[in-house]
């Protein structure tokens, strides 16, 4: 009897902590949304009136708009480069000898392991020699390296659950290696590739530390401008931009899910 009571108290205690931690995680993430619709001329939380003034201040500022454009272009290019390179790499590693595979795996996940400040400082000095600082190409190359591990890990785990005999069957029926890869294997791991592309896009869009050193001038990314603005003061325009960033990420995620689902239904 005493034990049952004890177990109930344990259970209640667990529920309270669990709910509290979930709120701790989600509330600060979403609070930028109400702040961005505040009507006062200064930052107010909770807001007492509603307005779109902070969105207006965001969308009418040429500086914020150009930074947004740069970030979106960089993110799209990063995804466009990292996805094919990473997918090919995943396929290559999946099929190569175990010894090569395990060495190369450790190598390609290094961008996740090495503290990003070191990559940023190193790339900054390398770019200084190559004249790539403050250029779009420089941002895209660095972001591609950061995004590759995400694409490779996702696509490799997709290949794991794919029955490789299907590709062998296609080849024994006369398909060339490349043709079999493109028409049999790729469609089946499409969802992993799309997820990898999404991760690459978000990695570039949200990246701060490298952008802070390597981007600038006309090619400053939105995260660089946000970081510098937040160092000075709490501008509610940042809340409006943050809300837009959340919307873009969620839209990209839903897009990937929907494309994946409709393609699966077609097949």
């Amino acid at each position, binding site marked *: 009897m005493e034990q049952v009571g004890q177990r109930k108290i344990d259970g209640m205690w667990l529920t309270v902590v669990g709910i509290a931690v979930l709120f701790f995680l989600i509330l*600060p993430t979403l609070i930028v949304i109400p702040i961005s619709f505040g009507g006062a001329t200064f930052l107010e939380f*909770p807001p007492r009136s509603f307005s779109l003034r902070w969105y207006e201040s965001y969308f009418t500022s040429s500086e914020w708009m150009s930074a947004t454009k740069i970030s979106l272009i960089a993110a799209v290019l990063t995804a466009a480069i990292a996805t094919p390179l990473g997918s*090919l790499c995943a396929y290559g590693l999946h099929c190569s000898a175990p010894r090569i595979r395990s060495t190369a795996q450790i190598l390609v996940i290094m961008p996740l392991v090495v503290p990003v400040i070191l990559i940023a400082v190193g790339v900054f000095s390398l770019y200084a020699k190559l004249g790539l600082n403050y250029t779009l190409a420089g941002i895209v190359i660095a972001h591609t390296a950061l995004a590759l591990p995400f694409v490779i890990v996702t696509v490799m785990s997709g290949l794991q659950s794919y029955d490789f005999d299907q590709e062998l069957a296609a080849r024994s029926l006369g398909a060339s290696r490349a043709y079999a890869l493109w028409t049999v294997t790729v469609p089946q791991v499409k969802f992993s590739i799309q997820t990898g592309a999404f991760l690459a896009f978000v990695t570039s869009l949200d990246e701060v530390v490298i952008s802070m050193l390597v981007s600038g001038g006309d090619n400053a990314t939105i995260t660089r401008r946000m970081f510098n603005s937040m160092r000075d003061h709490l501008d509610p325009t940042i809340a409006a931009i943050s809300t837009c960033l959340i919307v873009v990420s969620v839209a990209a995620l839903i897009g990937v899910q929907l494309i994946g689902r409709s393609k699966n239904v077609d097949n």
Partner: protein
Amino acid sequence: MSIAESNGAAQTLQNASTLKSEERRESLTFFGLSLPAVLVVLIVVFLPVFWLSSLSFYNAAGELSMENYARIFESPLYRRTFVVTFQISISVTVICVLLGYPLCYWLTRMLDRTAAILMIFVLVPFWTSILVRTYAWLVLLQRKGIINSTLMKIGAIDEPLQLAHNLTGSIIGMVHVMLPFLILPLYATMRGIDTDLVRAAVGLGSSPRGAFWRVYFPMSLPGLFAGIVLVFILSLGFFVTPALLGGGRVQMLAQRIESTITVYSNWGAASALGVVLLLLALAMIWLMNRVFGLDKLFMR
């Protein structure tokens, strides 16, 4: 007969060696497919980091020396940086465990569908930009922010607490960023634990608490350990949140490296700090590989 037999054996041997060389060639071709990605990583990550590391072994006059290392370990300024970095990283890791473990355990006792829905509360912050979340904490923790005003309204405090622009703010903000990194591997491990074992222990006369600590907890350790290492490594080299929520008063390793270069242009000292940070991170990863297996990342 015997000639035919030996012919056959030679044929088999030859076939085997041809097959083997084919296989080797194929394996090389496959590795070739990985080459572009490997090259990008080598050029963008390895080359600059190696070059940076090599700088740390030269003094201002361009001679080989350990001066930079002597300086970063002797100067009180840099020593303070190491102390603060470890202080924050350890606090953040401990708080993440205290918050994350009960949450994961609670989630594993839910129905699968409920747990999947509740996991959205973990995944949405995980996928939200660190800048966005740091901004939110700057708003919440400011002097006239909602936390201070609520505490004052209910009479818990008379004066607003200094929550942002210091160590406290940095730790709160970092816990929020790091918690999902602890939860994800831990929850994955806990879901794989067979709870019948706990029930069996209770059936055999153990108290529920004893069964938890002696049966369940040890089985959850690999995931917990992976989460701890992940949080600790990421905390050691973390830049954004402490730079903003610390308000310039908290200098962790990453900020010290950045300011040593952008403010003082002292590449030697900065690169020595960088090498120490890199070695710490690699040691942690090696430890994690030994205990948990990095291969798990590739779902092998």
